[in-house]
């Protein structure tokens, strides 16, 4: 047992790259919400990208190292409090001696901060092939609580020595723009919505509501009008999908989204922009920008156009 949680902050969970291949059992992927930041933290700690990290929400996480650890922190910028000789800082690996405590302050922007531990990350028990906590499905380890003692070290996920950031990583460490701009492609039910709705989604600003969580961002703003009133039989959903319930207010699906859903999807946010979405907090403002549908149809080649 290598580290003891002293304070989980508002919410802290164990996450890795999630569960793949179980959709037909009703088990969604889950996993780290901001994959880019988690990937950076693992890389800085010398871990494989699949190593399990702590995903801290609104900072506040505090833990004590029970053995000598090397740690790396990436994602939403938090002040880091640790013994001075640890030289703790965001976006670089640092040592926590046995008995030392690391405490994250609250981020002033962004939402989720990832703590990676060298040696292959957290070694909690996996469920269906992953150590991720799926809060919607109730799978994986429960959210972290004060007193939890976590094992560290999975030799299969630790191949390299801890590394220092390369120039390209500066993209990950810049604070997000405001309003955030998320690129999107027309979704499978794009034509279930009016032209006015298409225009609204591509132009207006939306606010992230406090009802947002790992399942998705619930947005407040101009409702999106349906062109038809037929009900959608449940169909597979994707991360980044913008689904529209009867009230017309868009929901942007994130890591813990359910496998299927019955609300039509008007658009799908570009995969890498879902990592940006995973850092938006209640009150943040965002806008969507349509990418060309013609461009997408060309890429798909032989897809039959809708009758």
């Amino acid at each position, binding site marked *: 047992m290598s580290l003891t949680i002293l304070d989980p902050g508002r919410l802290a969970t164990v996450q890795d790259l999630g569960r793949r291949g179980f959709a037909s059992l009703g088990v969604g992927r889950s996993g780290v919400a901001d994959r880019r930041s988690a990937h950076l933290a693992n890389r800085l700690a010398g871990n494989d990208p699949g190593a399990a990290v702590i995903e801290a929400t609104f900072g506040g996480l505090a833990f004590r190292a029970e053995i000598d650890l090397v740690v790396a922190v990436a994602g939403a910028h938090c002040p880091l409090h640790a013994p001075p000789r640890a030289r703790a800082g965001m976006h670089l690996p640092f040592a926590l001696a046995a008995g030392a405590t690391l405490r994250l302050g609250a981020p002033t922007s962004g939402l989720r901060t990832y703590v990676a531990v060298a040696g292959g990350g957290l070694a909690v028990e996996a469920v269906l092939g992953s150590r991720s906590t799926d809060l919607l499905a109730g799978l994986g380890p429960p959210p972290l609580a004060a007193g939890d003692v976590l094992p560290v070290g999975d030799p299969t996920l630790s191949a390299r020595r801890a590394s220092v950031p390369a120039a390209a990583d500066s993209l990950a460490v810049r604070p997000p723009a405001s309003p955030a701009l998320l690129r999107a492609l027309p979704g499978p039910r794009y034509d279930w919505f009016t032209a006015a709705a298409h225009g609204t989604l591509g132009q207006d600003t939306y606010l992230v509501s406090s009802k947002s969580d790992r399942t998705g961002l619930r947005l407040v703003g101009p409702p999106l009008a349906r062109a038809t009133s037929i009900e959608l*039989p*449940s169909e597979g959903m994707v991360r980044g999908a913008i689904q529209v319930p009867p009230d017309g207010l868009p929901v942007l699906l994130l890591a813990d989204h359910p496998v299927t859903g019955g609300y039509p999807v008007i658009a799908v946010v570009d995969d890498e922009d879902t990592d940006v979405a995973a850092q938006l907090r209640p009150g943040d403002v965002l806008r969507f920008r349509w990418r060309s549908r013609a461009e997408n149809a060309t890429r798909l080649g032989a897809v039959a156009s809708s009758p």
Partner: protein
Amino acid sequence: MRRVLPCGERALLVELDGLDDVLALDAAIRAAPLAGIDDVVPAARTVLIHFDPAVVPAVAIVAHVDLLLPPDRRTTAGTGGQSAARQRPEIPRPAEPAVEIPVRYDGDDLPHVAVQLGLTVGELVALHSSCSYRVALVGFAPGFAYMVGEDAELDVPRRTTPRTAVPAGAVALAGGYCGIYPREMPGGWQLIGCTTATVWDERRDPPALLRPGASVRFVIEWQP
């Protein structure tokens, strides 16, 4: 007419005519896996294919799906759509026997559902327990199977106010489907009974008792 709809850059939604075609395509993809396909999600009328565009491009997935579909169901326009003499291919039924689910028909909504369907409680129980059910899709929660009745459709709406806690094992109806709650959770379906069968156990192999395409029969353990 079948269609393939892009769903972002990493998924394609294949629209089909109905459950038989969905299950046939789902089985065919699993039997002939293509590198780069991450997951396949069968649902009542669609199959969603998650894939990694760095490994396989969308066009290749579309071509692969077209090859797996019977000629009259292909997505490309070349076959000229439906003809009056279209042959319906034989969709093989699953070889496994029906899963039997014992039910205590003591659900809080049982009388209300009977009234909505114009039946007595006894008639409702008899109908539900004599009907062959088939799993159309598993979604919403791990192990939550949406089952459709092959001989009869017990179609009732969801409750206007969902319950904040439906017990694990609750047998429920909504929108023409029958479902069993895999664990205690909020729910808006109408409760007609409960079962001791464990539909979801993450430590069991297989963890889900009910899979897409499986046949199910409900057996009366108790009725009022």
